[in-house]
C-alpha cells in the first residue's frame, strides 16, 4: 500500500491510494478472512525469497519440486477444506489416499497404456469411501471424528493385510507420462495445481452447492429450515473430499511411478493445519480455498527450505507447529477486534 513508484501527479496518486484503501476495506468486509489469505501468501513468498537470498534454494528445479509437492498437498487440503467448512472434520485422509493409490497400481499392474481404466475404478472407489463417511455422519449422526477415524483404521487394515507392507504394482504408463511431463520448462503438475485451485475456488464461492456447504457449516438447523437437504449436502461434501484425496493419491502415484502403503500418512495433520492457517474456521461456515492453498504451499515451502539447510529434518515439524499456533492466535485476534 506504499505510494512509491509511479506518480504522475500527487493528486491522482493520493486519489489512487485512497481508492485502493477503500477497495481493500470493502473487500475485507465482504471476505472477512482476506487478511489471513493475503498474509499467508506473502509469508510464503517471503520464505522463498529468504531461502533464495541465503542460497538454500539453489536452483529452479528445487523450487519446482517444492511447488509440485505443494500441489499434491493442496489437492488433499481442498478435501479437508470442504469438510471443515461444512462443520465436520475428516481423519480418513491417510488411508483413503493410500488405498485408492494401491488399488490403482494393483489393477494397472504392468499393463502399460491399458491401465487408464484402473484410474477410473480407483477414483470410483474414492467416491464410495466418501459416500460411506457421509452416511455415517449425516444419517447415523455419528461424530465426524469417530466415523472418519473408524473408516481410516479399517482401510489401513485392508491395505496392510493386502500389501503386507510393501509397495505393489505400478502406475499406468500414460499417467506417469502425464505427471512427469513438462510444458516448456514447467512441470504439468503446476498447471494442474493452478487449474484445480481456480475450479475449486469457483466451486465454493460461485455455485449453489458451494454456498450450501457454507450454509450447513454455519447452521445445519437454519439450512434445513430454509429448504436445503442437509443430509444430501453432507454426503456430497464427504464424497467430494474423498474424491480429492483419491485424486491426490492418483497424481502422487503417477509422479512416484508407484504406490506405497504409508504414502498417505504425512498428509493428515498438515491438511488440517493448512486449512486453519488459510483462515478457515475449524467450526465451519467461514473461509475459502485460496487461503488453504496458500497454507498448503507455505507448509511445503517451509519443509523444502529447511530440508536444504543443515537443520535436522525434525526442525520442520517444530517450525510448522509454532507457525500454526502463531497464525491461529493472530487470526483469532483479528476476529475479536474486527
Amino acid at each position, binding site marked *: 500500500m506504499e505510494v512509491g513508484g509511479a506518480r504522475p501527479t500527487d493528486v491522482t496518486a493520493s486519489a489512487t491510494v485512497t481508492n485502493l484503501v477503500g477497495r481493500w476495506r470493502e473487500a475485507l468486509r465482504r471476505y472477512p478472512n482476506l487478511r489471513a489469505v493475503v498474509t499467508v501468501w506473502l509469508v510464503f513468498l517471503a520464505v522463498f525469497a529468504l531461502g533464495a537470498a541465503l542460497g538454500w534454494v539453489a536452483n529452479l528445479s528445487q523450487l519446482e519440486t517444492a511447488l509440485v509437492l505443494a500441489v499434491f498437498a493442496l489437492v488433499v487440503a481442498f478435501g479437508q477444506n470442504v469438510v471443515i467448512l461444512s462443520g465436520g*472434520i475428516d481423519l480418513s485422509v*491417510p488411508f483413503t489416499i493410500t488405498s485408492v493409490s494401491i488399488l490403482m497400481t494393483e489393477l494397472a499392474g504392468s499393463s502399460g497404456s491399458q491401465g487408464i481404466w484402473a484410474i477410473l475404478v480407483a477414483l470410483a472407489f474414492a467416491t464410495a469411501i466418501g459416500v460411506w463417511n457421509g452416511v*455415517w455422519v449425516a*444419517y*447415523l*449422526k*455419528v*461424530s465426524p*471424528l*469417530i*466415523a472418519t*477415524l*473408524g*473408516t*481410516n*483404521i*479399517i482401510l*489401513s*487394515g*485392508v491395505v*496392510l*493385510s493386502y500389501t*503386507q507392507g510393501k509397495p505393489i504394482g505400478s502406475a499406468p504408463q500414460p499417467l506417469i507420462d502425464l505427471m512427469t511431463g513438462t510444458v516448456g520448462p514447467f512441470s504439468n503438475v503446476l498447471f494442474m495445481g493452478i487449474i484445480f485451485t481456480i475450479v475449486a475456488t469457483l466451486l465454493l464461492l460461485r455455485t*449453489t452447492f458451494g*454456498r*450450501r456447504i457454507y*450454509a450447513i457449516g454455519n447452521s445445519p438447523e*437454519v*439450512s*434445513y*429450515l*430454509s*429448504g*436445503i437437504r442437509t443430509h444430501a449436502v453432507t454426503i456430497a461434501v464427504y464424497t467430494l473430499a474423498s474424491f480429492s484425496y483419491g485424486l491426490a493419491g492418483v497424481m502422487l502415484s503417477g509422479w512416484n511411478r508407484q504406490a506405497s502403503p504409508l504414502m498417505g*500418512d504425512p498428509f493428515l*495433520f498438515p491438511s*488440517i*493445519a493448512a486449512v*486453519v492457517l488459510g483462515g478457515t474456521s*475449524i*467450526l465451519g461456515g467461514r473461509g475459502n480455498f485460496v487461503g488453504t492453498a496458500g497454507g498448503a504451499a507455505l507448509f511445503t515451502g517451509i519443509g523444502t527450505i529447511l530440508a536444504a539447510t543443515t537443520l*535436522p*529434518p*525434525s*526442525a*520442520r*515439524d*517444530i*517450525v*510448522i*507447529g*509454532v507457525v*500454526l*499456533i502463531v497464525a*491461529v*492466535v493472530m487470526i*483469532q485476534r483479528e476476529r475479536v477486534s474486527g
Partner: protein
Amino acid sequence: MTPLVKRVADRVRGGNPPPILGSLVVLAILLLVYGSVKEEAFSNFTLQEVATATATLAILAVGQTVVVISGGFDFSPVAVLAFLNVFLVTQADHLGGSYVLTAIVVVAIGAGIGAINGILVGFLRIQSIIATIAMFFVLSGGALALLDQPGGSVPTDFSLALSGEWGPIPASAGVVAIVGLLWLLVKNLRFGRHLYAVGSNAAAAFARGVPVRGTLVATYAFAGLFYGIAALNYTAATASGDPRINFVLLVQLFAAVVIGGTAFGGGRGGAIGSIVGALCLILLESVLFSVGVASYYTPIVFGAVLLAVVLPSAIGSDVNEFVRRILVRPRHTAASAGGEG
C-alpha cells in the same frame, strides 16, 4: 452391595444407566471368550502380559477422557508419549542417573506440556483440535531431534520396577490402579465439579463463577500428567526408545474412551470406563491373535468395533428424528420461506 445393585437397577429401568455399564457388559463377554480360546488365559504370565499391554493404553485413555469431559479433543498424546519415551531413554543419564528423579521430571514435563495446551485452549481460545495438532507437530519433531531412530535402552531395574511384579499383582496393574484412584480423588474435588460444569456448558459455568480458563489449564495439565505416567510405563515395558508416532494407538485411545461410555461433546462420562474400555481392546486383540487372525487384520476389527460401539445410540437418535420429522414435516415446509434460492 445390595443398595448399589438396586441403585443401578433403578437407573437402568429409568432409562438412565450409568455410562460404565455398557463397557462392563462388553468386558464380561470378552473375558468369557478370552477364557475359552486362550490357553492358560489366567496364568500369572498371561495376566502379566495383558496388564502390561493394557496399562499404556489405559493411562493415556484416562488423560484423553479428562480432556473429552472438558469438551475438547486431544490429538497430542501419542506424540507426548513418543517425546517423553525418547527423553527418558536419552536424557536419564544427565539427571544424575537417579530414576526416581527422572520419573518425576518426566511426569512434570508431561504436565507442563499439558499446561501449555491448556493455556492455548483456555486463555488464547484456540480450538482444542488445532492446539493439540500444533503440539503434536512440535513434539513429534522434538522426539526425532532427541533420537532419530529407534534405539537406546533403560536399566533393567527401572523396567522391573514398573513392569515387573508388585507382590502378587503385575506392576502395570498397580500403576493403572493408582491412576484410577487418582482420577476418583480428583473427580470428587472442586476441580472435578468444575471440569464437568465447564464441559457441559462453559458459558453457564462461567456465569456461576466457575474459573473456566483456570479449569481448562488444569484439565490439560492433568491429562499431560497422565501421559507422563503412561510414558514411564511404556518405556519400562519396551525398555527402549522409539521416536516414531503410533497412529494406531491414537485410534485405540479414542475407541477406549468411547467404549468406556464417555460421550464426545463434554460434561459426561468418566475415566474408569476408559480403563475398562482399554482392557476390552487389549483382550479383543489377544482373542484375535489366539484364534489365528493375522495382526494385519486387527485394525479392521478395531475400526468395526469403534463404529459398532457408537452405532446403537446413533441409530436411536435417528429413529427419533425420523419419527419427529414425519410428525412435524408440514411446519418445516411452511417455514422454508427465504434462504437458499
